[in-house]
C-alpha cells in the first residue's frame, strides 16, 4: 500500500538570503533535481512543525537542484528558516498542472511578477531562457514594495545577458533608495509604459491579488492581449495537495488539481471565491 502523504527527505544544497525575511533554498534528492514542470508545486516541511505549499522557483531544465522561495511567517517556515546547508527538508510532490510551453513556442513572452509572486514566474521564465531560441522577444517585469523587498537581485544581470531579452525592475513609489537605477512605480503602471502588443504574445502574471487584477486589466484593455493568452497562478491555502482535504477550491475548481495555473479566460468563469 502506498502512503500518498509520505514525504521524501531532500538535502539543502544552497541557501540564498534574498531579503530580510525571504530565502531561496536549493534542494537535492539522490544528488539532483526531481522531475517537475514549471508552474507545479510541492509540499515542503520542517518535520515537527508541519507542511507548507510552495511553487518551484527553478527551471526544471537545471538538473543539479530544485528550489523554492519562501517568506518566514509561521511555524513551518520558521523551522525551515533555521536550517543550514546539508540539513534535510521533507518534501512531497510535484503536484498540480503546469504552464503549457508548447503554446508559448515561437511567441513573444512577457513575464510579470510582484513580490514573492515572482517565484513561480521565475521557474517558467528561466525554463524559456534555457531554451532561448524557441521563443521571440522576452520581456521581464518584476516589482516589489521596496528595493529591500526584491528577490533574486543577484541574478538580474544573468537574465539581462540573454539576447532579445528586456529586464525591467521597479519598486513602489517611496520604496526606492538613493542611487536606485531601476523604475519607480506600481507594476501595472510600469507595464503600460512598455512597448508590448497582444498579438502573437503570451503573458505570465503572478503576484498579490491586487496587482494581478490591475495587470490583467492593462494587458487586456491597453495592450490587446487575448484573455486566453494571459496566464497566472492561484495560491490558495492547501493541506494535502491531492484534491482531498477540501479547502483550496474556487467554486468547482480545485486549485491543487485543476490548477494552480489558469488563463485569465478560465479565471473569468470562476466565482469570486479566491
Amino acid at each position, binding site marked *: *500500500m*502506498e*502512503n*500518498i*502523504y*509520505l*514525504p521524501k*527527505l531532500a538535502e539543502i544544497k544552497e541557501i540564498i538570503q534574498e531579503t530580510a525575511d525571504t530565502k531561496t533554498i536549493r534542494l537535492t534528492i539522490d544528488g539532483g533535481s526531481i522531475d517537475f514542470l514549471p508552474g507545479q508545486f510541492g509540499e515542503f*516541511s520542517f*518535520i*515537527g*512543525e*508541519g*507542511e507548507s505549499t510552495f511553487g518551484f522557483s527553478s527551471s526544471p531544465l537545471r538538473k543539479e537542484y530544485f528550489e523554492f522561495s519562501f*517568506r518566514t*511567517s*509561521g511555524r513551518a517556515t520558521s523551522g525551515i528558516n533555521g536550517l543550514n546547508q*546539508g*540539513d*534535510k527538508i*521533507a518534501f512531497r510532490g510535484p503536484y498540480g498542472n503546469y504552464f503549457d510551453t508548447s503554446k508559448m513556442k515561437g511567441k513573444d513572452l512577457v513575464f510579470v511578477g510582484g513580490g514573492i509572486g515572482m517565484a513561480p514566474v521565475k521557474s517558467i521564465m528561466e525554463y524559456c531562457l534555457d531554451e532561448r531560441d524557441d521563443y521571440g522577444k522576452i520581456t521581464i517585469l518584476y516589482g516589489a514594495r521596496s528595493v529591500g523587498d526584491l528577490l533574486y537581485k543577484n541574478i538580474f544581470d544573468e537574465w539581462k545577458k540573454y539576447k532579445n531579452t528586456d529586464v525591467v525592475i521597479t519598486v513602489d513609489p517611496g520604496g526606492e533608495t538613493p542611487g536606485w537605477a531601476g523604475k519607480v512605480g506600481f507594476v501595472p503602471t510600469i507595464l503600460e509604459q512598455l512597448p508590448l502588443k497582444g498579438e502573437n504574445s503570451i503573458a505570465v502574471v503572478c503576484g*498579490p*491579488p491586487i496587482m494581478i487584477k490591475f495587470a490583467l486589466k492593462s494587458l487586456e484593455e491597453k495592450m490587446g492581449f487575448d484573455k486566453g493568452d494571459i496566464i497566472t497562478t492561484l*495560491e*490558495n*491555502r492547501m*493541506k*494535502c495537495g*491531492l*484534491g*482531498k*482535504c*477540501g*479547502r483550496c*477550491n*474556487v*467554486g*468547482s475548481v480545485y486549485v491543487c*488539481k485543476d490548477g494552480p495555473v489558469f488563463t485569465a479566460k478560465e479565471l473569468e468563469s470562476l*466565482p*469570486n*471565491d*479566491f
Partner: protein
Amino acid sequence: MEEKYFEISAENLKRFVDSVISGGFEVIAPVNKDGDVFYGKIEKFDDANLDILLPKMSYKEYLLPKTETLFEYSFSGMDTAIKDGIEAVAGENQKRVIFGGRPCDAAAGPIMEKVFNWDYKDEFFNERFKNLTIVSIACEKPDNYCFCAEMQLSPESSYGSDILLKKSGAQYFAVVTSEKGLNLINPYINLFKETTKAQVPADKDWKKLFEIEKAKSFLDKNFEHNYFQDRFLSCIGCGVCTYTCPTCHCFDIQDEGNLKEGRRIRNWDSCQFGIFTLHTSGHNPRVTQGDRYRQRLMHKFKIYSEKFDKYLCVGCGRCSRNCPEDIDIKEIAKDLAGMA
C-alpha cells in the same frame, strides 16, 4: 454480486449478532452513553439500542478517524528518520461489523470513497472501507429533520450496506448485497431462511419535499445571491454540522511531538472555520459565515455532484438536529429549490 434475500426471526437475529461477537468480531452498534446514543462497541446484542432513529454521531470515524497517524518521525543528532504509518492500517476493520446503523450512514461510505480515489488513492481510507462490514436496519419512521428521499436515497435504501434488514412484523428480511455480507452470515446460515425478492416487502413511496436538482440549478447560477449572507447571519461557526456529518471529510494535517520524536497526523477539519482558507498574507477568500455556509452547500449539492454524479449529503439531518442555531439544511435546500 447479485443480491440474496433471507428471512430471520427477531430471536435468531439476536442469536446471530451474539454469535458474530463470540466468533471474534468487534460489533459496533447504537449504545446509550452520557445520556445520549452513540455508535460504540457492544458485548452482546442486548447492549444495542435499536429503538432510536439515529445515534448522535455517524460512524464516519471507523472510515476516517478523528485523528490518525500518517507517519512517525524521530530525530537523532542532525538525522531525521521517518516511519511510514500505512502499515498500521493494514487489515483494519477486517473483524469489525457496524450493526443497526441506518441507510443514510451506510450510503456515506461509497460517497466518500470517490473523493479518496478520484486520482491519488488514499489507502488509509480504502483499507478501512474495504474491510468494514455494514449491517443496517431500514427506518420505519424518519423524523422531521430527515430528507434522505430528497437526496436520491430512501429510508429503505441498501446503498452502501452489506446487509440491509427490513423489519416486517415479528421478523426481519435481510437483503444481502455483497460477498462481505454473505461471508458474515454463512457460518450461521441455519439461522436464516433463503427467500426471493418478491417476498421482501416493497419499499414505501417516500414523499419528497423538494427536488435536489432544482437546488443545484439555483446554486449553479447564484453564487453572489444575498440569500447566503442573510440566512447565515445567525451561524456561529461552531462547525458541529461538519463534525456530525457522515460525508464531511475535509481534513487538516499537523505535526505533533517533542524534540526527539513525534508524528504527522490527519485530523477532521471544518470549512466553517475562518482559518480553513486563511492565506499567509492575511487574505481570506471566505470572510463571512455566509461565505462559509455557502461553501458547505456548494460542496454538497453542486461541486461534488459535478465531479462524481451524486451528492455529498445523505439527508440524515444530523447537522440540523445538532445545530445550536437550529439552521435546518433540509429547509435551506427547499428554499434553494424554491428560488430556482
